[in-house]
């Protein structure tokens, strides 16, 4: 069974991000970048399937600028067998990424595609679902447990207030939640091996997909600074403030 794992290059989770002065986006100059943590979980799950003998090949894919090769190398060091970069200078959005991945899937014909449930930069949580729709594959999102059983995948999903277990048919799309696994660290021998693994580059044109964004970002603003709290002297004053100032009760 071939497994595809799309991964995204995002700002490192430990970086304190700053909004650009003109509010056009996040300032990414000289900022440490990393594999999106949910995508790392996806890679780990795929590599475990391979180690268990369920998967035969793990292919990591990224859509973005040539710098994404860094993150694909990381995936190779974590155990992916090869990597593909769909190289573009477009500031890609979920729909464009999903289209590019669907075009690749048409060639690769993987039986399982494991996504991170969302990226920590855009927080859209859309790409996996859009990809499933475009390819007509069944989907199990927000997985905290995945079990392959013949031609089926049993996915335990983290939903509001509990867990839901579903069984879907292969080929399938799974998106990973935080608790699915704890990703390993790259070992030195695997970093060395990664250098010899193939990392191919294709363009959107070669795939015949249009990556033009369909959503325009108007402005990016940092969250409002939290003001200091106050002490109220009675329950009445509290209720009054909750009603009339905070307007959280009526």
């Amino acid at each position, binding site marked *: 069974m071939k497994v595809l794992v799309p991964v995204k290059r995002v700002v490192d989770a430990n970086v304190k991000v700053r909004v650009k002065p003109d509010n056009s986006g996040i300032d990414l100059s000289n900022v440490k970048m990393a594999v999106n943590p949910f995508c790392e979980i996806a890679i780990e799950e795929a590599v475990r399937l391979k180690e268990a003998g369920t998967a035969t090949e793990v292919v990591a894919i990224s859509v973005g600028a040539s710098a994404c090769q860094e993150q694909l*190398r990381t995936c190779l*060091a974590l155990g992916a067998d090869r990597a593909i970069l769909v190289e573009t200078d477009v500031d890609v959005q979920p729909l464009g990424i999903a289209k590019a991945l669907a075009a690749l899937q048409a060639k690769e014909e993987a039986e399982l595609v494991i996504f991170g449930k969302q990226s920590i930069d855009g927080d859209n949580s859309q790409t996996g679902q859009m990809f499933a729709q475009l390819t007509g594959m069944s989907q199990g999102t927000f997985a905290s447990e995945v079990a392959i059983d013949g031609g089926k995948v049993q996915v335990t999903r983290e939903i509001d207030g509990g867990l839901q277990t579903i069984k879907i048919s292969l080929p399938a799309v799974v998106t990973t939640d935080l608790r699915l696994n704890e990703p390993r*660290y*790259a*070992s*030195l021998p695997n970093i*060395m091996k990664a250098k010899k693994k193939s990392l191919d580059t294709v363009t959107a044109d070669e795939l015949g997909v249009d990556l033009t964004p369909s959503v325009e970002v108007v402005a990016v603003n940092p969250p409002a600074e939290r003001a200091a709290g106050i002490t109220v002297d009675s329950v009445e004053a509290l209720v009054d403030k909750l009603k009339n100032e905070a307007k959280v009760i009526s």
Partner: protein
Amino acid sequence: MDFQIEDEHELIRDAVRKVCADFPDEYWADKDKRHEFPWEFYDAMAAGGWIGIAIPEAYGGSGRGITEASIVLEEVAASGAAMNGATALHLSIFGMHPVVKYGTDAMKQAYLPRVASGDLHVAFGVTEPDAGTDTTSITTSARLEGDQYIVRGRKVWTTKALIAERVLLLVRTTPKEKSERRTDGMTLLLAELQRPEVDISPIDKVGRNAVATCEVVYDDLPVAVADRVGEEGKGFRYLLDGLNAERILIAAEALGIGRAALRRAVAYAQDRVVFGRPIGQNQGVAFPLGEAKMRLDAAELMIRKAAWLLDQGQPCGAEANMAKWLAADASFQTADQAMQTHGGFGYASEYHVERYWREARLMRIAPISQEMILNYVTEHVLELPKSY
């Protein structure tokens, strides 16, 4: 000229950082306080294949250069592990260099894969109470009896002696006065250490207490001739051969401590509010930290250059020595300033900068004093008359 950082180096840095993140400052403070070897950390690094980084691939390592090894040790130190972490690995990462270069194939097959996997610890026995930097004056001797040497003498500053299975021991096989040159007549033995003929006593010291450094007395210890490294009488030259690499790695470790100290100082200067504003807003607090950053970055450039030269097989004596001096100096100044930034709390163990400070102080002394580096630079680079 190219300062582009290689992808592989970033991967190494990142991966080591992740392993180290599982061992926070509190872990190191505890190990330091209890004088306990950091086995959990050591085992985690061994499992990741990091210990064998500079050992040839043919003998179970990864065959990388000093550039890569220096990145690993810098990151270990910078994680807050400082010298408690770096020293735990240092000897295994680089100590076997004389065996790699001059050992017989049988010796390499027997020992290198075990060092690379982290299973075999080897200590270094060179310095003696009456022969520090003046190594040619050592008196620990070995006399040949049949197919073994009998070793007698006393060594100090043998780090990891308590846990090491073997020791790379420099002994005189010909007394200095009978040698043609004073650098002749010394032999390197890969001796067994945990033997009844060996007496090991840890030395009380200021810091880096997780890894014991010991005085070791050899009372007629037998060592098989097969455990001799290279030829008899050439041991000192074998050691000299690894000095530049050692300087560079030590410099990288010092740099790492400086980075850890600066990180804590900057965070404290941001957070600590006195007279209604963060103390880092005061230039008297901020400027020395700015200076520390510049000194560390400048030292790093010299480390990178020295490592690059060494990995290219080019002479790097001047650069390796200068890198050690600059990094040790920057590291201690930064650690001292970090303590100053923390005020009274810097003197308390809770904030960890006192631990960095104790360990950064060591870097100006060991494995070679700053003064001996100045001697090297004035004599060999500036060509001034030798002073000693």
